[in-house]
C-alpha cells in the first residue's frame, strides 16, 4: 500500500456523536495518541483504552493517531478507527463491539411493515434514537444516502450499529447497494442479525436467486427476508416474477424517483404518471401473497400532503410507506389504522361468522343479509389490524358479546 495517512469519520461545527480519525503508520516510537474532545474530562481515558485495544487487535505497534471527537459512542469510534486502519493495512480481522442481547431478535414474514425509516448508513447521530420513534422497521442504508467514496466506511458503521445500538424492537433492515457491490455488502450485515434486506433497483428474479445464494454461503441463523425495490420500467414488468422468486421475499416496494426518471418523466404530487406501475406492483405482490409497500413522501414539512398520499396508497392496496423523517411515522401509522366504523362493522361480521361456525351452519348471515366469504376474510383482516394497533383486545369477542 502506498497510502501513508488515513482519514475516517467526520468533524465540523454541525457534526455530533461522530469523530474524525487520522492515522499514520510509523516505523518506531510506539503509539502517539492525541484526542480533542468535548467529553475528554469525562471519557478521555476510556477512549484511549479503546483505541489502544483496537490498534493492538490489528497488530499496529507504531502509529500516530489523532482523534477529533464530538461525543461519539464507543462503537462509533471503533468503526472509524477500524476504517482508518483498513485503509493502510491489508487485514482480514474485524474488531467487533459487543453484540447486545436485546438486538438478537428475529421477525416474522407476515409482521406489519407500515413504516420503515430510512437512515443514512454513515451518519451515526441520526441512528441513535431511531428506534424510539417506533417505526415497524429501521433501514440502515448503504446505498443512495452514502457517497461512493464512503461506502466502506458505512459498512463498518452499519455493522457496528447492528451489534451495539438498541433499535427497540424495530425490524432490523439494511438497504444494500446494487449489483455486485450489494453482494459484497452482505458480509458486513448477515452475521450481525439483520432481519430484512432491501434490494434496490431490482429488475429480475435472477438477481434475487443470485443474492440468496450469496446469503446462504454466509450461513444466516434464520431466514433472511428480502424486500426488493422496484425502481424501473423493466422491474415493474417483472414484478410478479420478482415477488414470487423466493419464499423469503416478504414485501415488494416501489421507488418512484428512479421509476419516473426511467420513464423520462417527472414525479408529481397527483402521481398520475406512476398510477399504473403502482397498481401493477400491488397486484403482483398480492398475487404472490406478500406485502406491497409504497414509495416515500419527500416533503417532511407537509403533514397534510402526507396524510392525503397515505390515504391514496391505502385505497390502492399498499400496506406501508417509506419514511425519511421520524415525524412521518406516527402520521402514516395513524392513516393505516382502521377507523372505529370499520372495526365495528368487522366485529359484527366476524361475530356472525363465528356464531354460524359454532352452530355448524354453512352460511353466514347478518340479520337477513347473507355474507360472502371474501367479506368475512376482509373483516378478519381489519380485526387483526385493530388488535395490532391496540384498538381492541385479543379477546374482543368476549367483550363484544357482553
Amino acid at each position, binding site marked *: 500500500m502506498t497510502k501513508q495517512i488515513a482519514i475516517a469519520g467526520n468533524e465540523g461545527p454541525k457534526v455530533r456523536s461522530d469523530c474524525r480519525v487520522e492515522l499514520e503508520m510509523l516505523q518506531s516510537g510506539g503509539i502517539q495518541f492525541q484526542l480533542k474532545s468535548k467529553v475528554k*474530562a469525562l471519557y478521555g481515558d476510556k477512549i484511549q483504552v479503546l483505541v489502544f485495544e483496537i490498534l493492538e487487535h490489528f497488530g499496529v505497534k507504531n502509529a500516530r493517531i489523532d482523534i477529533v471527537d464530538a*461525543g461519539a459512542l464507543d462503537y462509533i469510534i471503533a468503526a472509524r478507527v477500524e476504517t482508518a486502519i483498513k485503509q493502510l493495512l491489508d487485514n482480514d480481522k474485524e474488531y467487533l463491539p459487543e453484540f447486545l442481547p436485546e438486538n438478537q431478535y428475529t421477525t416474522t414474514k407476515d409482521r406489519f411493515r407500515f413504516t420503515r425509516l430510512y437512515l443514512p448508513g454513515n451518519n451515526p447521530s441520526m441512528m441513535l434514537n431511531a428506534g424510539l420513534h417506533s417505526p415497524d422497521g429501521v433501514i440502515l442504508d448503504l446505498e443512495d444516502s452514502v457517497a461512493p467514496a464512503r461506502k466502506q466506511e458505512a459498512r463498518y458503521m452499519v455493522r457496528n450499529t447492528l451489534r451495539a445500538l438498541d433499535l427497540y424492537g424495530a425490524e432490523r433492515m439494511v438497504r444494500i447497494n446494487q449489483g455486485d457491490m450489494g453482494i459484497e455488502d452482505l458480509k458486513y450485515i448477515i452475521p450481525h442479525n439483520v432481519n430484512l434486506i432491501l434490494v434496490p433497483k431490482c429488475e429480475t428474479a435472477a438477481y434475487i436467486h443470485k443474492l440468496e445464494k450469496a446469503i446462504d454461503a454466509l450461513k444466516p441463523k434464520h431466514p433472511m427476508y428480502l424486500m426488493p425495490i422496484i425502481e424501473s420500467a423493466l422491474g415493474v414488468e417483472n414484478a410478479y416474477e420478482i415477488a414470487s422468486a423466493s419464499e423469503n421475499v416478504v414485501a415488494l416496494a416501489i421507488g418512484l424517483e428512479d421509476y419516473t426518471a426511467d420513464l423520462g418523466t417527472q414525479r408529481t404530487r397527483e402521481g398520475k404518471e406512476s398510477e399504473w406501475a403502482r397498481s401493477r406492483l400491488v397486484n403482483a405482490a398480492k398475487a404472490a401473497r406478500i406485502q406491497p409497500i409504497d414509495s416515500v413522501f419527500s416533503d417532511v414539512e407537509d403533514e397534510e400532503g402526507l396524510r392525503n398520499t397515505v390515504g391514496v396508497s391505502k385505497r390502492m392496496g399498499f400496506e406501508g410507506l417509506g419514511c425519511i423523517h421520524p415525524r412521518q411515522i406516527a402520521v402514516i401509522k395513524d392513516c393505516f389504522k382502521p377507523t372505529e366504523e370499520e372495526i365495528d362493522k368487522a366485529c359484527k361480521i366476524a361475530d356472525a361468522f363465528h356464531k354460524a361456525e359454532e352452530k355448524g351452519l354453512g352460511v353466514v348471515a347478518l340479520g337477513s343479509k347473507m355474507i360472502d366469504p371474501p367479506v368475512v376474510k376482509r373483516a378478519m383482516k381489519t380485526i387483526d389490524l385493530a388488535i395490532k394497533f391496540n384498538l381492541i383486545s385479543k379477546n374482543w369477542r368476549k367483550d363484544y358479546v357482553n
Partner: protein
Amino acid sequence: MSTKMIKNALGRMVPEAINGEKQIPFKGVGKHRPEGRKYAPPIATCADYPENGDKRVASLKEALIKSGLKDGMTISTHHHFRDGDLIANQIFDIAAELGVKDLRWFPSASFPCHEPMIKQLESGVINRIEGSMNGALGRFASEGKMNGVGVLRSHGGRYQAVQDGEVHIDIAVIAAPAADPFGNANGVHGDAACGLLGFALADSQFADKVIVATDNIVPFPCIPWQIHGNYVDYTVEVDVIGISEKIVSGTTRITKSPDRLRIAELTAEFCDQAGIIQDGFSFQSGAGGTSLAVGEFFANKLRERKIKARFVRAGSNKYLVKMLEEGLTDYILDGQTFDLEGVRSMRDYPNHVNTSPFTSYNYHGKGNFASMLDVVILGATEVDVNFNANVVTHSDGYLLHGIGGWQNCLFGKTVVLPLPLFRDRIPVIVDEVTTITGPGELIDVIITERGIAINPKRTDLIEKLKNSDLPIVSIEELKAEADKICGVPKKPEFTDKVIAVIKWVDGTVIDAVRQVKT
C-alpha cells in the same frame, strides 16, 4: 487564605464567608427565616434635582463621575438587551480610564458580548462578577482567574439580595429603549425595543444612584413608565443603546429535532394524563426549542378541547402571542420578551402584562406568582438520582449558565424537566450532580426520550399515572440506561479553591463551585 467550609442541609460543603462577608448555609426549603427590616436607600430631596425635570447630563462618563464612581463600588446593569448590550462594557471602559479599581459588577445576567470584561477582571478594574457567568467569562472564573469569588443568584434571589441589603448597589445603570429627561423609561418603544425593564426594578428602588441611558429620548411623559423617573438621578442620551437584532430575535423557533419533539410530546401527554391541563390552568415554559414545542402541544390540546388557560408566565414569544390572540389564554404575565412578536403584543394588548422579579419571583415577599403556576417546564444540565438538579455548571465542571428564574419556578405546583437522557454522550441523569442548583424535593418529573421518572415524593402523580401507557420508570433505571449507552463518566477534577457560590432563593448558600483542574 483558606476559607472555613461548612456542610449545608443538602450535605454540600460551602464556605462560611466569601469576599469578606459571612454566609448562611442552605438550611432546607422554607427553613431560613429572615429577620429585621428591608434595606432602604438614602432619602433624597427635590431641592437637589432640577424643577423642570430635565436630569440630562452630557455623557455616560459624566453621569458616572457625578454619581461618585470610586474604588470598591458595586455597579449594576441588566440583560434586557441580551447579547445586543452596548452599555455594560462602556461603563467599565470608563472606570478603567478613570483608574478605578476593585469594582463589583452586578449584572442580572451576562452574555457573550461581555467577553471584553475579561480584560477588566485581569487588570483589577473588576474584582468579581455577581451574576451569571457563561462562555468565556465562565471559563475565566472556572479556571480560578477572578480575584473575588463569584456569586450566582436567581432572578428572584437578585431582587431578594438587593431588598434585604445583602447587595448594596452604589450605581445602577439602566439602559432603556425609550426614556424622557426626567428618567421615566420603558422597553416597548424605540429601535432597541426589548419589551420590558423588569430586571431593573430592584436597582431603581434601592440603588444609591440611578442612571438611565437611552438612544430614544422623548419629551415628558414617557408612557408607559415601567421605570419611574422619581428614582432616577441622571439621564444620558447616547447614539446607539443596543444592537436591536441581538436584543430580540425575529426567529424563536420550535425545535425540528424529532427526538426533542418526542420529549415535548411526552411532556404534554404526561401533563394531560396527570389532569393538569384543564380549563383555567396556568403554565410557564421557556423559550428553548423543546419548551416552545411543549407550549405548542399544550395549545393543541386546549384547542381540541375548546378550553383555555387563565394565564401563561413567560418568556413571551410568537407562539404565546398566537395563543393570546386565539383566545387560548386570558393573560400573558411576561418577565422578558424573546422576539419581536412578544414586544408588539406587549405594546398592543392590555392582557399581555409586564411583570418583574418582585411580583413573580421574590421569596422574601408576601407571596409570588411562581408558586401559583399549575405546571412549569424547565431545563437542566444534570439531574441526580435524588432529583437534585444542576443548571449552572457543565458536567466537566465549568460554569456554563446563569440560574435565571429557574430556582424561583421550582415553587410551581408541578415541576417538569423534559431532558434528553444524554447529550453528545454526556449523561444527564447522574448519581450526584456537579453543582446543586435546585433541591430534589421541589423537582417532580423528569421526562426523557427513553422514559419518564416521577419523584417518589409525588405519590399523587404516581397514583394518577399508574395505568398510563407512558413509559414510566424509576430514576435509577434512567440512570442505568444512560450509563449503559454512554459508559460511566469520570468525574471532573477540582482544586479546593471556591470560585463561586450558588445562592438559594432566600440568600443562603446551596452549593459552591470550585476551580477546575486544568
